[in-house]
Structure formats: structure tokens, C-alpha cells
């Protein structure tokens, strides 16, 4: 299957920059992806031809802004395969998870249990620990296999009649492992537990059909999905949003306010207190539309060919060890590795001197690092605009680090 990567790269202005005399080999997409012209154009159009607050004004700029903001909600909903009124704009993926922890968490009782996994990002651990401190719920943890996958064989024994929610990473931000959602949902249904997915690492790799997945909550970040910073998405089934109390209080989320009592707006407005990130949401809408325009069968095949090239190259360098599934099956283009005798930060710093951007460290997954008794990894995270030159530049840098730093 052919994939015209040059045509995709051309749409991302930063990729043709020369920085300090070097081309940009951007392989840190898992932390934050680059953004295409169509997103920049959408944000600029809002800022220059329709900048105003949303929902409240009657002047024409306010109407333009509101229309663009609500159109962005429709774009996001279409990308997820859901109804627009089930889409809540948040400040980010972390904010979306915190919203669920607070508002859905308010419906839980002491002794209710939430099930997480050992590979979760801190943003899918700490909000639940805060909830535990507030309300006396209990947390359980699914272990991770040696391949860096959530060990679903352990799931049945960890489910209890009090398990109310299972909240897991759709794709690991460290190992790249894709979760077998059907297995999780099937088991969750047997006890009536809800399922939430942290989609931060999956959403940037193409449209989703959330109803077909059978989950109840889905969260992702705008900036990892080629959109602006400062915006994220929470999707939840309408009946859940309807039952949940507000997270933040303020303007826009109310029905009627008196000093005696306040009533709240219906979802999604109930969860969007104050002025939302308007330009950012509009940009994210454009990013979702851009993603829907891509041939993801070809794009994914391209991304996985890069993963294969990377893994083959790393295995030829003495002392490298990949943390994550060895095969391309059920994985996404996030690859973590260790170089024996060289700290991940020194690998990443050396790569920077080759013009290669990667992330090194614990990746906000300290429990996973503890699981493997490591300080950190060097993580290569790819997007459809990456090409063989990016991978080859990285491999050259790793070889240099192996030669000079140990």
C-alpha cells in the first residue's frame, strides 16, 4: 500500500524548518505532535475574523465564534463516531480524566472500587488517588506482562461486585501496546462496571468508533492529535453525563442562579464552566477533520513500517533492549528502548545533537518503571509525517551514543 509521506509532511510547516543547521527529525509525537496548516488556518481565521466569546453575545462576531466552536464539537464527535452533545471540551486529557474522577466519582460510595493498570500515565492514577482520599473508594491495579501489555488474564480475579469503573490506557504511552478493549468491556459488563479509556496515544492515529468499542468514557488531548495546546476532549455516554454533577462552577454551566440555589445546564455545557478554550477547540475540530481526510489504512501501515525499521535497527546496536511488544501485532507507533550503560537522558541529549527529538525518562509512568526496575527509557513516538530519514538519523545518533558514552 503506497502512502505519500512527502505530501503529508508538506502540510506541516515546522518539518521543513532548518534549526541550528539541522533538519527537524521529530519523533516526540507522544509528548506533543506537530500541527498542520489547516489547523493553524482555522485558529487564525477565528482570531482574525471571528474572535469573541461564545454562547452569550448577540453581535455577529459572537455568533461566528459560537458557530465555529459548535462546529468543532461536531467535527470531534464525527471523529469519535458519537453524538456532539456527548462531547465535552476540557483543558486537556488530564483535565478530562480529572473531570470524570470528580463528577462521576461524586456518584460513588465508600468501598466502591476502581480498577487501573500498572502501565497507566500518572494522569490516570493520581486523580483516582485524590478521589480515594476524598471519598474512601478503593483502587485496584492490573499488573503488566513482560511484554509491556496490561495482563488481562489477571482481570477476572481483580473484578469485584464493588468494582464500578475500569480506567485504562487505550495505547500505552511507553510500550505502544494496544489494549484488547473487547475483552475488558465483556468482563466489565458481567459486573456492571463502566469502562473509561485514556486515548491520548490512540486518538492521533485515526478516527474511532466509540459505540462499537462499547466503552463509557473516552479522553484525549488536542495537542497530541495535531491540534492546539490547552484543549482536550471528554466523551461520555449521554446518560452518564446527565447523571454527573458539575466539576467546575461558573458562567455558562448554569440554568438559573440565585443566592438560595443554582440549577445547572444540561451536558455538555454543565461541564464547560467559564469561557472555554475557543480557538483551541476550533483548531482541534480542524485537526479531527484533517485526520478523517487521511487514508489511515495506508498511514498506519506506513507508521508500522517505521516501527519495524526502528526495531530492526535498534537490535543491530549492541546493548539495546526494547521495552514493549516485540511484534507489530496490536501495537501502535510508540517504541521505548534502553541502551545498556547509557542513561536515557544522555541518549536523548545525544539524539538532539543529531537533530532528533525524542523523550527520555519515566514518561509519567513511575509505577511501570518500578515494575521493570528501570530508571527510564528513551521513547520514539511516530506520526504519519515521519519517514525513513527520521528513523535513520535516530539510529545514527544511538550508535554514536553507544560508541562514545560507555
Amino acid at each position: 500500500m503506497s502512502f505519500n509521506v512527502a505530501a503529508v509532511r508538506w502540510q506541516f510547516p515546522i518539518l521543513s524548518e532548518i534549526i541550528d543547521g539541522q533538519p527537524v527529525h521529530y519523533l516526540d509525537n507522544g509528548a506533543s505532535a506537530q500541527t498542520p496548516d489547516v489547523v493553524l488556518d482555522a485558529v487564525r481565521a477565528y482570531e482574525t475574523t471571528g474572535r469573541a466569546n461564545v454562547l452569550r453575545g448577540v453581535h455577529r462576531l459572537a455568533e461566528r465564534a459560537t458557530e465555529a466552536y459548535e462546529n468543532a464539537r461536531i467535527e470531534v464527535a464525527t471523529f469519535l463516531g458519537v453524538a456532539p452533545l456527548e462531547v465535552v471540551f476540557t483543558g486537556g486529557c488530564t483535565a478530562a480524566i480529572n473531570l470524570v474522577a470528580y463528577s462521576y466519582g461524586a456518584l460513588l460510595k465508600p468501598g466502591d472500587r476502581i480498577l487501573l493498570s500498572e502501565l497507566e500515565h500518572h494522569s490516570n492514577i493520581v486523580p483516582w488517588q485524590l478521589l480515594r482520599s476524598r471519598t474512601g473508594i478503593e483502587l485496584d491495579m492490573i499488573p503488566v506482562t513482560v511484554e509491556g501489555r496490561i495482563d488481562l488474564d489477571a482481570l477476572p480475579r481483580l473484578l469485584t461486585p464493588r468494582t464500578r469503573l475500569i480506567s485504562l490506557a487505550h495505547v500505552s504511552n511507553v510500550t505502544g501496546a494496544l489494549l484488547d478493549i473487547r475483552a475488558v468491556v465483556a468482563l466489565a459488563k458481567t459486573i456492571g462496571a463502566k469502562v473509561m479509556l485514556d486515548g491520548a496515544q490512540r486518538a492521533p492515529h485515526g478516527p474511532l468508533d466509540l459505540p462499537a468499542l462499547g466503552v463509557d468514557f473516552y479522553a484525549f488531548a488536542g495537542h497530541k492529535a495535531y491540534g492546539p495546546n490547552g484543549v482536550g476532549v471528554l466523551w461520555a455516554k449521554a446518560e452518564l453525563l446527565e447523571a454527573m454533577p458539575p466539576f467546575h462552577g461558573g458562567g455558562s454551566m448554569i440554568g438559573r442562579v440565585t443566592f438560595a440555589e443554582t440549577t445547572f445546564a444540561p451536558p455538555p455545557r454543565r461541564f464547560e464552566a467559564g469561557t472555554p478554550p475557543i480557538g483551541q477547540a476550533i483548531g482541534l475540530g480542524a485537526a479531527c477533520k484533517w485526520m478523517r481526510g487521511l487514508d489511515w489504512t495506508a498511514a498506519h501501515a506506513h507508521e508500522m513500517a517505521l516501527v519495524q525499521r526502528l526495531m530492526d535497527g535498534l537490535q543491530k546496536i549492541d546493548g539495546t533492549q526494547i521495552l514493549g511488544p516485540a511484534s507489530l501485532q496490536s501495537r501502535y507507533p510508540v517504541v521505548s528502548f534502553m541502551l545498556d550503560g547509557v542513561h536515557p537522558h544522555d541518549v536523548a541529549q545525544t539524539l538532539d545533537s543529531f537533530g532528533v527529538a525524542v523523550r527520555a525518562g519515566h514518561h509519567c509512568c513511575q509505577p511501570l518503571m518500578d515494575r521493570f526496575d528501570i530508571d527510564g527509557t528513551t521513547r520514539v513516538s511516530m506520526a504519519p509525517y515521519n519517514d525513513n530519514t527520521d528513523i535513520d538519523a535516530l539510529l545514527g545518533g544511538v550508535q554514536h551514543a553507544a560508541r562514545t558514552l560507555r
Partner: protein
Amino acid sequence: MSDQLYQDRIVALAKAKTGAGKLAAPTKSARRDNPLCGDRVTIDVRLDDKGHIAEIAHQVRGCLLCQASASALSSIAVGRDKAGIETIRHDAERAIGREQGEAAEPFAAFTPVKSHKSRQECVLLPFEALAEALS
């Protein structure tokens, strides 16, 4: 390649591993973590009657810069008290550009870190651990 952060002198300091390990009977020990990158330094010291360092050892789970710094610090720490260690810290701060002036050896080797703000804490972490051990 466009960078010379990992110059031979820094790499040599890290590889020398001066003072790497544990003390059998430390007077004091302290551990410091850098929550941003996960680097961890543990320092053991044996102090004499006057509070001067008689022996020092360090364990570093961290990057090359942190290892090199711990090694450099250990190489000149013996015989110094808290004030003496502060003097060395000023050298390190000068080397990485946080203070004005020339850095003395061995920390002069760290001048390439000046242009890498995100890595400067790696150099200072052993000082943080040692300061805690001496506090």
C-alpha cells in the same frame, strides 16, 4: 552533530566513578530525587569530630552529568565542612552559568552545560544530597 555537551572531560569524570559505592559506617546519609527526570542520588558521609568530611561515597541512578558531578564532588570533598562544600557548589554554579565568574577545577569541566538549561539540575543534584547529609 551540532553539540559538544558530552566532552571528553565530563565523560572521563563519569567513568572515573570516584567515590562510587556505599560507606560501611556512614555518620550521615541522604537521598535526593529529581522528580522531573527521575535521577536519584544517595550520598554517605563519615564526619570527623569537627564536622569535616572524612569519607564520602555516592550511589547515582541518573544520567552521565549527574554521575560526573557526583564523581567530581567526591574527588575534592574530603577534608571540607559544610561551608567548604558550599564553596565548591559556587564553582559548579559558575560552570553552568548560574553565577558569574570562572569555575575552578574540577567543575570547570561542566561549562558545556551552560547552554542546556534542562540539564543543569542534573549537575546540582549531588550537591543537594550532600547538603542534606551535612544539615
